[in-house]
């Protein structure tokens, strides 16, 4: 069995978190690439092929979006809302990876149609395990949906 190369979009302003997440995802056996953007606006430009990313093909959609909520410029929830309210991007699975346990964030995210909400565990090992599982799950789901 071979896996098509997939793209995971990581929206995370912290380079440290980004590095740790990428490290965790590196152990996912499914073949994938990771695109990393550092704020909400950049994320939207990337997804909708606008601004600096206007040369990107709109058909090239990420198969999973990992989204932090606390982002510069445009917040994670705003990004989520845009993705889920646009018919061309609505089906892309979005997993929020946040350090916020606040019920209002959780409620709002689910209300906007988030596919999963993962709390960033303080314990590194837990964090690695969680991230890895998310990556595997969604890549696998995507595989099943897309493969003929």
């Amino acid at each position: 069995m071979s896996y098509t190369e997939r793209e995971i979009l990581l929206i995370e302003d912290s380079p440290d978190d980004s590095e740790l997440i990428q490290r965790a995802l590196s152990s996912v056996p499914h073949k994938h690439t990771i695109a990393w953007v550092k704020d909400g606006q950049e994320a939207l430009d990337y997804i909708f092929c606008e601004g600096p990313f206007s040369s990107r093909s709109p058909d090239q959609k990420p198969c999973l979006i990992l989204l932090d909520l606390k982002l510069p410029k445009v917040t994670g929830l705003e990004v989520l809302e845009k993705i889920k309210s646009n018919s061309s991007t609505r089906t892309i699975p979005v997993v929020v990876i946040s350090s916020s346990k606040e019920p209002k964030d959780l409620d709002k995210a689910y209300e906007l149609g988030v596919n999963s909400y993962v709390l960033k565990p303080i314990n590194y090992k837990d964090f690695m395990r969680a991230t890895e599982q998310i990556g595997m799950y969604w890549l696998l789901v995507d595989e099943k949906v897309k493969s003929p």
Partner: protein
Amino acid sequence: MRLFFYLMFTFLSTVLHYASAAEKELIEVGEIATCTSSISTATSTSTPSGYFTNLMTTRYWPARWTCGTWSDWEGWLYISSDISIFLAYFSIPFILIWYIRKRDLGRAKWIVTLFIVFIGLCGFTHAIDALMFWVPVYRLSGFTKLLTGIASVGTAIVLGFVFPEALKYRSPADMQAEINKRRQLQELFELFVKHSPGAIAMFDMDMKYLMVNDNWIKDYGLDKEELIGRSHYDVFPSIPGMSSWKTFHQRALNGEIIKNDQDSFFHNGNEVFLRWQLHPWRTEKGKIGGIIMFTELITERVQLKEELEENKKTSYKQLEVIEDISDVAKIGTWNMFPEANLVEWSSIIYDIHEMERGAAVDYETVMGFYHPQDRIKLQKAIKNTLSAEATWDLELRLVLGEKEKWVRAIGQPLYDKGIVIGLDGLLQDIDVSKRTEASLTKTNQQLALVNEELGAFTYSVSHDLRAPLRIINGFSETLKEDFHDILPDEGKRFLSRIVANSQKMGKLIDDLLAFSRMTRREERPTQLDLNTMIRELVNEVFSDSVNFISISPLPQVYGDQSMIRQVLQNLISNAVKYSRYEKKPQIEIGSYEQNQDTVIYVKDNGVGFDDRFISKLFGIFQRLHGEEEFEGTGVGLALCHKIISRHNGKIWAESQLGEGATFFFSLKHSR
């Protein structure tokens, strides 16, 4: 008297008639007959002295039987007639004498006496006429007739004088009419007295009752039959204040009119009120004949008046109370009649406007006091009331010199016979409460802002404080993984220290967040089944300790599900933690009733605490044990305290160092 004169006159005329008829017959007999036998031949002496000395002589004339020729029939007719006239004429004087003795005839007495003499003499002449049939006492007869003549002429002359006066005397028909008229008057008078209002009594000079009306009988409970003629003082022998009454009566009998518009006395224990007047009454001659007393019982009226006065007093009192209240509450009343441009204020309203009480105000003055924006509102409201009968309740600003004052103005239409004639309402000074309200609102807004900021702060703490920790942790682990082989043991030990501390800080942040969230959250109390809650808790959280936790059945309590769960979790967690070095740890959860509350306790046999520091037990970040011995952040019990306080309950603890600790908290059974 007049009647008598009339009778007398008729009687006299009848007698005269008969007398003259008898006289006439005698004369006729004399003219026709002639004396047929003569006893004596001597002639009569003609001198008056001889006449009177031999008045009884019969010598010179024959007896009448022998003079002329009398048949027996003729003779006895004459004689019997004369005798019957004599008897009649002689008896009439006796009747008249009896009459004048019985009746006081006044001047008429002398006329009657004259008449008695005259008629007696007439009778006597007839007796002599009869006698002369046998004894011819002509001289006596003449003399008697002379006397009769004199008496007749005298009587006639007197009657002539009396006649004009007698003419004035009324006929029996007139008299009857007079009597009828008087009777009617009398009846009218009696009705007048009977039905006159008030009680009326008429007394003579000796205070004896002459007449009373029905009210007098009724008002004083008297018997009319027994009253007339009796003395007032006999009828009321023991009336209170009789001595002063006697003085009043005496003064009235002396001609004074005395009045009293409200007098009172006690009758059968009840105070009776009356109004009275005493008037002297006078006879035709103007002499005082006694007094008339008028009384009217006015008890009901007086009581009614007193009641009214009392009511008036009460309502004045109530008014005063209302005024006091309105003074304190700074509420005044007003009314306004726009057509007359008339405005009336109660004194409080003048005070509110800081004006002199009673100063004249009109529509313009009133409006001038209001803040321009509020004036428009008020004018609109007044217009609306007059046109649509609407009421209003507005909070408006008065402008008094430099300052503004808040007032509450309430208005409503004022009706007269169903037509709106103006407005009335209330005005209250609400400046203080309005300003307090404003400052409260401001404080509340500030509080809300602080709360919001606090929310943002905790949010940021949960994100930003945790993120670096995670990174420290993450890279420490990465370091361990990637460079495990080349790190010396000392380096590995440092790394594990870094990881442990970052984890501890993570716990601290979590606890703080929980505390903050709990304080910001509204509690949603419901009826809780603590038995189920604790069973779940023990099974889920304290599964390792389930063997030494004993739970007594617990009652239902009233509280917020998740908050109370948090309290129980913290207390059980503490109990487990502080008894972990015991060989046989024992934790007991139970309850008891106290002052209508339920007290829940969690008891352990652990290390306990030094109760000198009990006051620090529930303070945030306060710990009574070293970190090395027992880990902890000092937030758990502070959170418990916060939650139970918000449930209006109490939380406390008892312990001896080394002998375990018991934590208690109280909750309500129900709402």
